């Protein structure tokens, strides 16, 4: 089985994130592997351990964005590639999905692509579906369990977490999965893995390496990024003649303020 995991490098979730003049900063908080991606890496490794094969981690980012890939290697991925090119700055999902799909294509003969559910910075959760669509492969999102997978018959069955309940879906391979955290408990990087990862030379693929001529320019713009207004913690006391009246008022206020 040849598996590719797409990982992203994001600031530590404990970081204090601020914005000044539209530029987001996280102080000296470290850059780490997107926490959701750890579940994707773990699942890929488990499938490989069961079925045999290889797991490659790919990431799109600036030149020095190797933390996520190093972590993936330390967990046990066989190889890691950074896709980086000055022309790839400022892309939106249209461009990123095209680049990642090209990356999967360049790895070649891939049976399965795994994504984490979303990234903790942008939090759109659409990359898995978009990369699948570009590759023409089925997308299986919100996967909470890989029930069975067979590299020779090229089939997979998964369980997905929908709002309405758990859904079982079968599919052909190759396919693209995005996984939720109920799927597994990611392993710690082993010390051997850490050593290999820190020594590893991570190759960089540029747009010409990928063989993509023109990357789709962004369809969206972000004219403003700002911190939400600090809500005054002056308590608004809800009063009324009866418990029912108070409850009605409170429920209305909460819905009005879009708290619910």
């Amino acid at each position, binding site marked *: 089985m040849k598996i590719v995991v797409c990982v992203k490098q994001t600031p530590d979730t404990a970081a204090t994130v601020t914005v000044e003049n539209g530029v987001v900063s996280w102080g000296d908080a470290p850059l780490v592997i997107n926490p959701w991606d750890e579940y994707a890496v773990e699942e890929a490794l488990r499938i490989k351990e069961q079925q045999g094969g290889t797991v490659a981690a790919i990431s799109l980012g600036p030149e020095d964005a190797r933390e996520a890939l190093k972590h993936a290697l330390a967990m046990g991925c066989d190889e890691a590639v950074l896709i980086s090119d000055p022309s790839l700055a400022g892309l939106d*999902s249209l461009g990123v999905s095209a680049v990642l799909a090209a990356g999967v294509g360049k790895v070649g003969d891939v049976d399965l692509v795994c994504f984490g559910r979303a990234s903790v*910075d942008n939090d759109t959760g659409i990359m898995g579906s978009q990369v699948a669509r570009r590759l023409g492969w089925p997308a299986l999102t919100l996967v909470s369990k890989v029930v069975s997978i067979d590299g020779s018959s090229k089939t997979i069955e998964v369980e997905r977490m929908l709002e309405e309940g758990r859904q079982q879906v079968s599919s052909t391979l190759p396919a693209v999965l995005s996984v939720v955290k109920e799927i597994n408990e990611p392993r710690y990087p082993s010390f051997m893995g850490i050593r290999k990862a820190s020594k590893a030379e991570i190759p960089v693929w540029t747009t010409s390496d990928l063989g993509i001529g023109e990357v789709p320019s962004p369809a969206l713009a972000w004219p*403003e990024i700002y911190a939400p207004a600090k809500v005054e913690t002056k308590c608004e006391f809800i009063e009324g003649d009866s418990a029912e009246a*108070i409850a009605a008022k409170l429920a209305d206020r909460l819905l009005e303020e879009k708290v619910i």
Partner: protein
Amino acid sequence: MTNDILVYIDHFKGDPLPASWEAVGAARKLAADLGGSVVAVVLGASVSDLAAAAIAHGADGARIVEDPLLAEFRPEPYADALKTIAANAEMLIFPSSGRTRELAAMVAVDLETGVAPDVIELEVIDGQVIATRPIYAGKLLSKIVARDKRPLILALRSRAFPKLDADASRSGDIVTVEPEINAPKTEVKGYSDAEVGVSLTDAAVIVSGGRGISNNPKLSPPAEITDEKEIEVWKAQQGFKLIEALASVLGGAVGASRAAVDAGYIPYAHQVGQTGKVVSPDLYIACGISGAIQHLAGMRTSKTIVAINKDGDAPIFKLARFGVVGDLHEVVPALTEAFKERLQG
């Protein structure tokens, strides 16, 4: 290129997602500023009644695709169908669900256009639509606009936009479209029940009970329970049933203060605080909790705190956005009913 604002009506086995009507409502408001028609789009095996409901909720008309290949939702065939319909629209708006996220993503790729999920606010300035969505777990907000590609595809967060009440007298055309749809490579095999219980640390809503939960003089315990301590615990458990009911209606989890856990009212797994779990939900409703610093340490980063306590001077009110000075045993069940009406109606 038309100036149609398409609204995708999401449904599960024929049951419409109520948030679909919110999307119609939001589209109506945009149409008022931008001009253009609000056109509902419904895909499935047999959907004309959903189309009619969409029109009743404010759509000017509807386009439907009825095809056996669409009997069970799969994003690929649905995207095949939707992309043809949406190709010339100005905007395509979705309510939020697992289905619509995949669908919106794929249609965006097919039409080489932009998509922004989880939109919480919409404005129109100088004829341009500006969508706001949270990033970095809501620590920051981002405004989004479309550059030159259309349609602009958006998925709206549930309950962030108002819906219009259904008005059966509203009318509009329902047009059937027959786009080419490829058979999917995946197959839905079945479903199993949704999980019972939300994890405390993941919950978006938490309703917590404190020491005050056992203090309900109106309750009479069953005759078999005579020991004072046992009566206290029994009363507390009845109280926690009220908490549980409110949490259930809000799709949330049940929490507790250390005092309640120490007193044996509820297991340690529910404890919120310094010892116990640290939580950061969107809404934290503290019932009968005074708000000592070690409890606050566990929930102070909650987005909105509501406090219900008999003691108007309880420290928790300093942190709360909304407060009710009253008896939780009356207010909590009343709140449960109030929300039932508003959310499930």
